[in-house]
């Protein structure tokens, strides 16, 4: 009897899972169900090269469209799954079709959060998650003028850099005291703030947007201090919400995302989850953590596929992502969480510097600016909980591969 493996969500995690099922020799039926019009593509360039017009969507595809036919992967685009019955092992699609499955992967990702303020839905107020979002934003970018970026997390920072690169005036509004300060702390936040200032972004820190104004489309924003800032359009980067509705309605356990174990199994028999939507209890604290990184989507999607095929090794990837802003390649590896010591390797004011986040004498995370090798080599220190000497870590002559080896 031919088995059917269904995958809901044709993003990076879902695409990676489908590719892996075939690469591992699965010869049953693979159905890959997506709610977008495109075959799986990489999202990271949407705020970078794609937005700047350097790359086309075809270049972002995980695999060329023809791959799916060649690999006998049944690709259902623009056809969201609308209901899931885990007992009957059946999915309903918006087109009306029902899909019976033997194993199911939920890789539904999430949606960009919008600001719930007056005018938040006005034309010209963009979010940035999908190719369609990026295409719309690019049209406004081509019109030039002044852009307001709301929120200086990674998406906001990258959007600001891309818009400056295209020659627009950029005002960035962030409610916290510094960019990325929640995730990276004030020391690194200050470096990122200076990077954007040096590249001509006007930073409005410690203020939030309370209203988007305009008749037909946005033409200004009102900030919490009462300041009115005129603009031609705005980009909102205030995070994402995981798309858990299908799982929730099916009674699958949630905790800030779909709860999975180290094999990507959910609370429902035969149902797995991976990527932005999956939340896994942290080894140390037991707190469920979602990882919203592209690399995690790619690798966790592949891991889920192997689990569906019976593999029993646990998922133990150290989270890693990169961000390209101006002439800086910024990489982060490790686990978010409290730290008790921050060690710089290199001069914090230099173009090339790394920051190591330590707790109890072990490295928990590394933020590397124009030092990709530091991030790469830190991953082992983080995974193996290597006890490190802060002075040795700070010394650029120290080979990170030799620490604790």
């Amino acid at each position: 009897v031919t088995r059917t493996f269904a995958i809901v969500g044709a993003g990076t995690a879902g695409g990676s899972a489908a590719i892996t099922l075939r690469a591992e020799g699965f010869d049953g039926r693979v159905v890959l169900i997506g709610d977008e019009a495109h075959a799986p593509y990489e999202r990271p360039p949407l705020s970078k090269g794609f937005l700047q017009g350097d790359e086309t969507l075809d270049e972002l595809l995980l695999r060329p469209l023809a791959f799916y036919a060649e690999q006998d992967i049944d690709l259902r685009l623009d056809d969201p799954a609308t209901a899931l019955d885990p007992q009957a092992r059946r999915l309903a699609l918006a087109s009306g079709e029902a899909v019976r499955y033997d194993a199911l992967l939920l890789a539904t990702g999430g949606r960009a959060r919008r600001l719930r303020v007056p005018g938040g839905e006005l034309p010209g107020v963009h979010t940035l998650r999908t190719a369609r979002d990026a295409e719309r934003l690019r049209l406004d970018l081509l019109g030039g003028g002044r852009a307001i970026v709301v929120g200086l997390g990674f998406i906001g920072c990258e959007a600001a850099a891309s818009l400056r690169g295209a020659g627009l005036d950029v005002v960035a509004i962030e409610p916290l005291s510094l960019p990325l300060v929640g995730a990276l702390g004030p020391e690194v936040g200050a470096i990122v703030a200076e990077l954007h200032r040096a590249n001509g972004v006007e930073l409005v820190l410690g203020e939030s947007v309370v209203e988007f104004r305009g008749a037909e489309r946005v033409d200004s924003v009102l900030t919490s201090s009462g300041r009115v800032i005129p603009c031609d359009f705005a980009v909102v980067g205030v995070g994402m919400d995981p798309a858990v509705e299908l799982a929730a309605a099916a009674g699958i356990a949630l905790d800030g995302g779909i709860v999975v174990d180290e094999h990507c199994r959910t609370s429902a028999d035969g149902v797995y989850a991976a990527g932005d939507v999956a939340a896994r209890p942290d080894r140390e604290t037991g707190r469920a953590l979602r990882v919203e990184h592209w690399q995690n989507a790619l690798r966790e999607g592949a891991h889920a596929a192997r689990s569906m095929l019976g593999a029993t090794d646990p998922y133990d990837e150290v989270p890693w992502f990169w961000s390209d802003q101006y002439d800086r390649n910024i990489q982060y590896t490790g686990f978010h969480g409290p730290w008790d010591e921050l060690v710089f390797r290199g001069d914090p004011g230099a173009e090339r510097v790394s920051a190591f986040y330590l707790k109890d004498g072990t490295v928990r995370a590394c933020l590397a600016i124009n030092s990709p090798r530091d991030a790469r080599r830190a991953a082992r220190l983080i995974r193996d909980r290597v006890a490190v000497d802060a002075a040795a870590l700070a010394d650029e002559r120290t080979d990170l591969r030799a620490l604790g080896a």
Partner: protein
Amino acid sequence: VSGFVDVCDAEEVVEGEVLSFPLDSVRLCLTRADGVLAAFDEDCTHRRCSLIDAEIDGTVLICPYHGAEFDLRTGAVLIGPATKPLPLYETRVVDGRVEVRLP
């Protein structure tokens, strides 16, 4: 058919370090992986990022920017995001000098 061209002293190429040689026809990189010389294209096949800062781990090359991994013995992709193999070039050592066969 192009033949071998002289590139550098063999002893300059040390284990795990990447040397770059921007030649007319190719931007060439050289390393020594598990003791064996490997000559490859400087541009990662994923997004054309430079592989000069690549990490060499045994016979595996890791793109420093987006993490694609290639087998330096065959050029094959081991882990995405890259989908196309890394172009490799044949090498030989003559009188202590590295020569690479260019396309």
